[in-house]
């Protein structure tokens, strides 16, 4: 009788020690975080597009340093997934790499909510080829269309089908997955209809995979966001784009900012729930997001997007302060659209 009892006690000590260890860690987790605050307190929940994530994360990081009582968390559910949570009232701000769709507006309105739409930056979609590709120095939108339209599937498989002067090389295509906002916008801008694309390309939701793919094949071509190109200039080469007027424009922060890189520049957004904006911490966070203190960081290499003009940020701040709701994109994303509409 005694032997198993003694053994069991020792075993229970093991288990108890383990539990105590976990409890201690859990308790540590609970204790920290509180402390001196500057009066601004509360939780801000952001979710949505992975494209906008680096910007919102940078804003959250900087804002948390200034106001340690405010806890901003950022999720990555994708633009569509973010709007679902937004309509369910689960988030305060939704990151979006495209304007809100009519069906999503319906869901938000049906839940008795309203939103304030704020463009926060530009992203330039970059068409890239392998550095050893010595035949492409510029592509027109028509040539891109020839390459990517649905009719090209199984038909256009060689570089010499794009332009007669191109060599006889197989066309290796790389593009973001069909769920991404980048794919939506590229197809809209190049083919003329969102989601309309050939299907026989290598797709990945992870832009790093696309970089590796294009870097690994001499005859490859692909597209993704400017920030991934800027970080990988040693592995891939950007192709200047001719929007149809005969001038080839190289993608860069400057050409995206001044609007000359067309049609592959697009605005990206945050959507703020109107009732959440009444909370002082959300109000302060959005105002900081648009302030001259933060917006220059958007173009820093760590974030990698193109900031809007300071006049536009001022107008957007005023628009937010006036709580102007609704979208200015009733027909969805528009190619080459100006953001001047927010200035009035």
């Amino acid at each position: 009788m005694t032997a198993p009892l003694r053994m069991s006690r020792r075993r229970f000590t093991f288990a108890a020690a383990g539990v105590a260890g976990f409890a201690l860690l859990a308790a540590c987790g609970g204790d920290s975080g509180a402390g001196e605050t500057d009066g601004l307190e509360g939780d801000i929940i952001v979710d949505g597009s992975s494209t906008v994530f680096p910007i919102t994360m940078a804003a959250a990081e900087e804002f948390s340093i200034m106001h340690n009582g405010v806890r901003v968390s950022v999720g990555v559910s994708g633009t569509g997934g973010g709007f679902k949570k937004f309509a369910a009232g689960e988030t305060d701000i939704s990151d979006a790499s495209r304007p809100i769709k009519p069906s999503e507006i319906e869901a938000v309105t049906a839940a008795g909510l309203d939103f304030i739409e704020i463009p926060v930056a530009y992203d330039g979609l970059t068409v890239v080829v392998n550095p050893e590709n010595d035949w492409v120095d510029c592509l027109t939108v028509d040539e891109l269309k020839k390459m990517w339209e649905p009719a090209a599937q199984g038909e256009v498989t060689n570089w010499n089908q794009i332009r007669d002067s191109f060599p006889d090389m197989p066309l290796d295509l790389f593009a973001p997955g069909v769920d991404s906002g980048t794919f939506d916008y590229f197809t809209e801008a190049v083919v003329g209809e969102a989601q309309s694309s050939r299907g026989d390309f290598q797709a990945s939701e992870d832009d790093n995979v696309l970089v590796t793919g294009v870097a690994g094949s001499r005859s490859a071509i692909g597209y993704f966001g400017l920030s991934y190109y800027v970080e990988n200039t040693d592995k891939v080469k950007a192709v200047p784009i001719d929007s149809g007027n005969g001038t080839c424009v190289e993608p860069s922060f400057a050409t995206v900012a001044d609007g000359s890189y067309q049609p592959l520049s697009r605005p990206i957004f945050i959507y703020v729930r109107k009732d959440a904006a009444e909370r002082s911490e959300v109000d302060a966070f959005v105002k900081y997001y648009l302030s001259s203190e933060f917006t220059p960081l958007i173009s820093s290499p760590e974030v990698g997007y193109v900031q809007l003009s300071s006049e536009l940020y001022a107008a957007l701040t005023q628009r937010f302060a006036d709580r102007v709701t609704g979208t200015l994109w009733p027909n969805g994303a528009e190619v080459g659209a100006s953001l001047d509409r927010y200035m009035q």
Partner: protein
Amino acid sequence: MSEDTQTVGRSEPIFKASMQWRRIKAHFFVVLGLLSVLLGVVTLLVLLADVIIQSTGWLDWQFFTSFDSRFPERAGIKAALFGTLYMMFFTMLLAVPIGVMSAIYLEEYAGDNWFTQFIQVNIANLAGVPSIVYGLLGLQVFVRWMEMGRSVLAGSCTMALLILPIIIVASREAIRAVPPSMREASFALGASKWETVRHHVLPYALPGMLTGAILAAARAIGETAPLITIGALTFVPFLPEHPLDRFTVLPIQIFNWVSRAQSEFHELAAAGIIVLLVVLIALNSVAIYLRQRLRTKY
């Protein structure tokens, strides 16, 4: 052997006494087995070497004491590490008692009828359900219906469901390994069923149960899919203050770093992988140690 002797009497024996060929076959099998073993080990070593090389210089104290940042040199895994530990604490708190009690009931009390068999088949099937399905269930039941939100507790409940079948199966094995003579001896001395279970079956089965629980925990720590589904967050610059607070975990943090544009974050991800591997290896070692040290001698 018996087959050999049987064929002797036949007109055309299947057995041919070509010793050399049989030796070659025997050697071939050894080589094949060795190659199979090496394939796994070499893959693991290559992966480990790659991760260790990539993470060089990133695994410092600051890495453990910082939240995520857009500057790789300032970024750390504090939130993810605490989130993982915090979630696992509640997961084990829920799953182990329920799993062990289920196992005791099924092994010691339940009669052998259609209902018990129905439960047993279900548990076996649950152990094979893909983890993403548990995530969808957790999202609907815990996050939405029970209104836990995207919290540590919702994550723990989902993970507890995920590992419950593993714990039940392991605990039942451990209980079954206790010889019936132990129980009979206890009954013969007048002990009740509960006294027998409490004082004899449980102490002897405990090492096996603990091993099962630890291996189940190791499985849960590495899971990402169900947590992404229930909405564990990506950037969380604070520690969860209570069980209903928002959180992130190691695999999600690693996944996020891998998909960033800056290559430094890919090295940070490697550092995160090392931390995750160390936690997993530590847990597995504890399981092996317990199994060896507390191996019951009847």
